[in-house]
């Protein structure tokens, strides 16, 4: 039996391919604004793969939220219009659609080991241009920035070498070229 979806009737099932989109959202830096954005995603069942938020202009009291989400094109459109109608939201830009998005993330990795593993970790870190920001006789903390898939790769390599823990910032993104997101 075909399972009904949605609340009341058969909703059209989404056969469209899902894609990863990075949205930049400029908001008033006021209490609760992040909760509004996150609440919208959870309340309407949208995915959040990554989320970063920080004040970007102290004078104009603006924060920038970067959300990485996945969904079919029509859902991404919905997310954008739903975000746009939140009262403290200034603008929403789908950076993926601009085709010119630069994405970077910062990763801190703690690796524990001795002997060959330790040497191997250090040389891989060097190859990935990671920096050592803490060291003990049996551990390192590496700092590395890059695209999310590069960081994924680095974590994968560290696993057999004594990976202890990982802290990631989430993606910060900006479009190439001279224009700002408000055009």
């Amino acid at each position, binding site marked *: 039996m075909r*399972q009904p979806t949605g609340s009341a009737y058969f909703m*059209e099932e989404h056969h469209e391919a899902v894609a990863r989109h990075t949205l930049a959202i400029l908001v008033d830096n006021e*209490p609760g604004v992040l909760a509004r954005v996150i609440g919208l995603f959870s309340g309407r069942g949208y995915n959040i793969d990554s989320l970063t938020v920080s004040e970007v202009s102290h004078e104009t009291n603006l924060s920038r939220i970067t959300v990485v989400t996945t969904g079919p094109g029509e859902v991404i459109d919905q997310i954008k219009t*739903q975000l746009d109608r939140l009262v403290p939201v200034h603008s929403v830009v789908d950076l993926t659609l601009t085709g010119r998005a630069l994405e970077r993330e910062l990763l801190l990795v703690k690796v524990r080991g001795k002997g060959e593993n330790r040497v191997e970790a250090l040389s891989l870190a060097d190859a990935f241009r990671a920096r050592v920001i803490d060291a003990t006789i049996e551990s390192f903390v590496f700092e590395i920035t890059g695209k999310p898939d590069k960081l994924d790769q680095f974590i994968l390599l560290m696993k057999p070498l004594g990976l202890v823990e990982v802290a990631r910032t989430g993606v910060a993104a900006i479009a190439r070229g001279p224009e700002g997101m408000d055009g």
Partner: protein
Amino acid sequence: MAADLTAAPTEHMTGAEIVIRALADQGVEHIFGYPGGAVLPIYDALFQQNSIEHVLVRHEQGATHMAEGYARSSGKPGVVLVTSGPGATNAVTGLTDALMDSIPLVCITGQVPTHLIGSDAFQECDTVGITRPCTKHNYLVKDVNDLAQVLHEAFYVATSGRPGPVVVDIPKDVQFATGGYIGPRNVVHKTYHPKLKGDAEKIKAAIEILRTAKKPIFYTGGGVINSGPRASELLREFARMTGAPVTSTLMGLGAYPASDPQWLGMLGMHGSFEANNAMHDCDVMLCVGARFDDRITGRLDAFSPGSRKIHIDIDPSSINKNVKVEVGIVGDVAHVLEDMIQIWKASRAQIDPAGLMDWERRINSWRARNCFAYKTSETTIKPQQAVERLYELTKGPDTYVTTEVGQHQMWAAQYYRFDEPNRWMTSGGLGTMGYGMPAAIGVQKAHPEALVIDIAGEASIQMCIQELSTAVQYNLPIKVFVLNNEYMGMVRQWQQLLHGSRYSHSYSEALPDFVKLAEAYGVKGLRCEHPDDLDATIQAMIDHQGPVFVDCVVDKMENCFPMIPSGRAHNEMLLGDVGEKTVNEAITEEGKMLV
């Protein structure tokens, strides 16, 4: 939060006085509320002034529905004042209702003093946290110098664009503190500026599609009402110019006159046979201020398969949400219709008269099916008959109708006919039982001379029945007309159709004697049990000067038809005179899974 920071305060006063002053400057005449510890300073300021009249409710949910009825019937925002904790949480149902039906409300909630926030203080709750998903926007005001600005912003946000409820949470110490006051004219919102005028290119594209139509339809909704009386006039004008038949959602009834020959009746799950079939078979659909709700579309993949669709909506997120349209015009209905009419006239556009005549002929064949026919009985009042008689005896431009939620609501929508906007108040989106009677009180407050009727069911009415006391206190002559079938009728109907007639907990045992109950409140109580007494009872209800409660005992097992069963399309309606077997077969196993 503050927008125009250059506006210097002109006067200084306490936070509580700022609240009263801001309301007065916003033109507020009535507020609906209930006092409590965290709003005492505001109530004290209220006591010492005469410009705003306060209506004391019996439960905060009642206050929100009153404000909704007030807003929907007057076009002005409704204002609610409640205390912290339970005062705020009790208001949540009404706030959600207003969000779903796009009703402008400003709800002021008291909060524990700022230094106690987060300490689990007495009657503390996270009001802005709780109401964030059920308001259009909300504020917690921690500095008295922001208060005037926030209050004016709240009115602006509630009433502009797609209207909705806004909560302003004010801690008690902020109400006591002294701060600067600025007037509404000094407030310009920083980010929120909804687009009123539609994109000219899109309007042109819409006209190009419309002029090629042979089987057009206008599908209109609550957005026409929210846009103001001018939108209803323009809709009538445009329908007349194009000759297109018009149907409407539950929320839009009255925007187009039910007495007009181009009127098809309401569409959707319990809409008319002709409206739903016309929606299914049309070739061009112009959706005006409606949102393709699931109660309207039925099965989405079979929704109006052959039509080119145009959608006018002030909320961009409504466009392409449920149904993909060819042209989506973001703008206010009145603004967009005005432009459309102008272009239509200027280009001497016309819908092919031969095609239109053919279309009319088909529509008339559906009309001839007479889908709202029902069998009367000599001994039992049929609910449809009760609403029909009510309509005949009370119709007129000064009659306002509210409803609760359930079968009686659908019968009211089907058999009571509206020729003017703002005369029909019902909980469409959220479907809130208990909405109608408080809403009627709000309507009566806005229109003291009007005849205001709450068409109710005996189950729904009990959800906010305490507000009878409010009607008596303020001598508001509302008429509560209960269709009493002793069942939660719509639940029972679904159980009959979808759950093998197993009436699980849908029968109301131990109903009160409603006449005595009404009398206990000081409301005139009338009972009607026989078809022959129907007219006389309704007349007695109208003639009585004060509030009246009519317990109209109707057929217990009557079902609400026509009906699009769950999981079916517009052209698969069930009509009232089919046998039970057909009804059972019409509902699929999959359909039973749906709400």
